[in-house]
């Protein structure tokens, strides 16, 4: 079955990238973090809260609260509402839905927001309650969440394609270098490849610097039509194309590719650009080996060439392939569902020229990807978006 021609996102833009600086542990609730992000959106866009007529929320730690509860909580009166529980794919999925909502004029200004808190015990609670398949088929094996599941994927991938820990480590090391320029990154000390290799093992071949640090934080942006942004005098990035895929390649015995590989042709065709045209790339980096997989699946190299690709390129802000310029989740921290937004929000800042100390020169065209929901043996959700700043 081939997909029919999709409607282009003509005139759909994103604006007001917001990051509420992360903290390792927070005694505040997820709602508090989401509220701060909404407040920052309104302030940055110079609008009133009542101008927001669409809301899209993602969070793991809202408890029994949902998007509808949040409208009352924050005094929002919206005519379009969605709650997206797709983990690391939530930002791309939220963006896609919001874009179509404003395109169809079901809403004019949609706030996309993700936030999570991190109490001292909330990581464990999230693990225990992740999904039914996870509870039945992973938790009793002591995996304790994603580390062991990703370890199995990483081990198989590295063995299949002859990838060494040094290869994977280059990604983490480059991101740490980027993070040192981001005052909000939780990781503030340099990381050498030697330190990466010498780190203590967590679940072979996953070692300490392959893992993200759970933390509290929030990320947000607005989606609207170009003319709305213009009337507000808001710098905005045009949405050129998106893809989203769930439960791809179910017959692969082990995950060596994500759903991007299924849709990557469409991603670039819809945007009418080539991978080489991109100025910045923000992948979903819950583990660097997943990033390496994305370099292949998103068309920067062929399957099995990821290691060679990272050896041949400089992934830092000033390098020839600026990647995860804020430091990514690996060095900034993973604030639950906000981790899905981190790359997209940083990508927006980049193409809007608003990234400050992490700004890549002349960044005009960006890509951000998402990956999420490891159910028991593989990540199920994938997505990506390409967007362009006003100067392109």
């Amino acid at each position, binding site marked *: 079955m081939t997909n029919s021609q999709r409607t282009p996102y003509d005139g759909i833009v994103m604006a007001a990238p917001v990051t509420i600086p992360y903290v390792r542990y927070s005694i505040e609730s997820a709602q508090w973090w989401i509220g701060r992000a909404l407040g920052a959106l309104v302030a940055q866009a110079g609008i009133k809260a009542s101008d927001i007529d669409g809301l899209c929320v993602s969070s793991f730690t809202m408890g029994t609260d949902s998007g509808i509860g949040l409208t009352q909580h924050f005094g929002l009166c919206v005519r379009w509402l969605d709650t997206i529980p797709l983990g690391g794919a939530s930002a791309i999925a939220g963006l896609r839905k919001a874009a179509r909502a404003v395109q169809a004029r079901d809403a004019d200004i949609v706030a996309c927001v993700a936030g999570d808190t991190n109490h001292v015990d909330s990581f464990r609670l999230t693990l225990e309650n992740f999904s039914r398949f996870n509870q039945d088929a992973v938790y009793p*094996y002591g*995996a304790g969440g994603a580390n062991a599941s990703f370890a*199995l994927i990483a081990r198989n991938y590295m063995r299949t394609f002859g990838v060494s820990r040094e290869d994977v480590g280059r990604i983490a090391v480059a991101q740490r270098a980027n993070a040192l320029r981001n005052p909000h990154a939780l990781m503030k000390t340099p990381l050498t490849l030697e330190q990466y290799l010498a780190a203590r093992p967590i679940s072979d071949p996953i070692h300490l610097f392959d893992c993200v640090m759970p933390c509290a934080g929030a990320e947000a942006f607005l989606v609207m039509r170009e003319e709305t942004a213009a009337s507000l005098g808001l710098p905005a990035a045009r949405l050129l194309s998106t893809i989203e895929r769930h439960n791809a390649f179910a017959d692969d*015995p082990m995950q060596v590719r994500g759903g991007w590989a299924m849709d990557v042709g469409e991603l670039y065709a819809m945007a009418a650009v080539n991978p080489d045209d991109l100025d910045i790339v923000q992948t979903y980096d819950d583990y660097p080996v997943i990033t390496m997989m994305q370099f292949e699946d998103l068309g920067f190299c062929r399957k099995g060439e990821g290691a060679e690709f990272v050896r041949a390129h400089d992934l830092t802000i000033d390098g020839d392939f600026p990647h995860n310029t804020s430091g990514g989740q690996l060095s900034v921290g993973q604030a639950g569902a906000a981790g899905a937004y981190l790359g997209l929000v940083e990508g927006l800042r980049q193409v809007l020229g608003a990234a400050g100390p992490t700004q890549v020169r002349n960044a005009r065209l960006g890509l951000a990807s998402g990956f999420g929901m490891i159910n*028991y043996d593989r990540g199920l959700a994938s997505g990506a978006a390409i967007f362009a700043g006003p100067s392109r």
Partner: protein
Amino acid sequence: MLQRCEACGAFAYPAREACPSCLSPDLAFADAPRGGVLLAETTARVPSDVYFRERVPWRIGLVKMDCGPTIVAHLHTDCVEGAPVRMSLQLDKSGQAVTFARPEGETPNMADDRQWREMTADPKFRRVLVTNGRSVIGQEAVVALKAAGAKTVFVGVAEPWRPFAGEDLLRRQEGVEVVTLDAADEKSAADLAADIGGKVEILVNTTEYVRAGGLLDRKGTSIARDEIDQAYLGFINLAQAFGPAMRMRGADGINNSVAWVNILSVYALANWPAFGAYSASQAACLSLSHCLRAELRPGGIKVMNLFTGPVDTEWFQTVPPPKVAPRAVAQAIVSGLKNGLEEMYVGDVAEEIRQRLAANPKALERELDR
């Protein structure tokens, strides 16, 4: 056991409500072929789970089953990536059924694997208390446990100065220590526990008190009282004397307590009027065993119930065959411990009653009346 789709025959894992191949809702648990291939393994060193944190490093892997699904499993140390494995369902320390992968063929000292021993209660290297050495089952249990590699078998004998059949053999065995124990006597149980309670890793409750008769053919309650004293209160005495220390020592390194075994009449499940009062005392013990299982679970101690039909001993002399040989009961104890089971049915009668009870309990009740 995996879910199999009744419509298309596909196996599914983890358990779900609709077939991933054809969306049929008719998924039933069925015996699945146990073969598979280990795709990838990892050794968890910093698990978030407290239980595993104390047992690191812990190996798990992803197994592609020959019958279709891929399954996360605990790994036997001899499992190798890319090589065939055999899967089984085991009860872990919390009583949850989990999958365990072992190499396809036998490897040397296979049962000594550290992770396998965590899932099971293998008597090898362990110290065991068999509570009644006067009974034939008790004596056979001692022999079987020693043969299985138990380090020490304590065997309880009430009034040990009174001679009994099989005594010589019992006392001659190396690594067997005869101790004074009358389970029906609270003080006797407590005294022994004060002495060896900290050393018992497996307790095999072989208390037996079998008398024929139901309700109307007996006069008064004296025999019933004895049945209750010996079997039911004896159980309580043993549990109170040994249970707390065993529960506390469930995670005690390699010398940890692991299991409590009860030998119960299968007539605990359905009353056999010819031995009606005895059946009732066994039903009481069965109920108690579920209580004990729940109370020992926090310590990771398994409670295994072994159900038998009439055993070939003096008290069932009047009962026609088939009867279970005491040696078969003893061997079942060892095999149940080695496989970490919670329930076992020994012999044809027990197995038949299990099946008939599942099929039609009212019909079974009626038929036992003959």
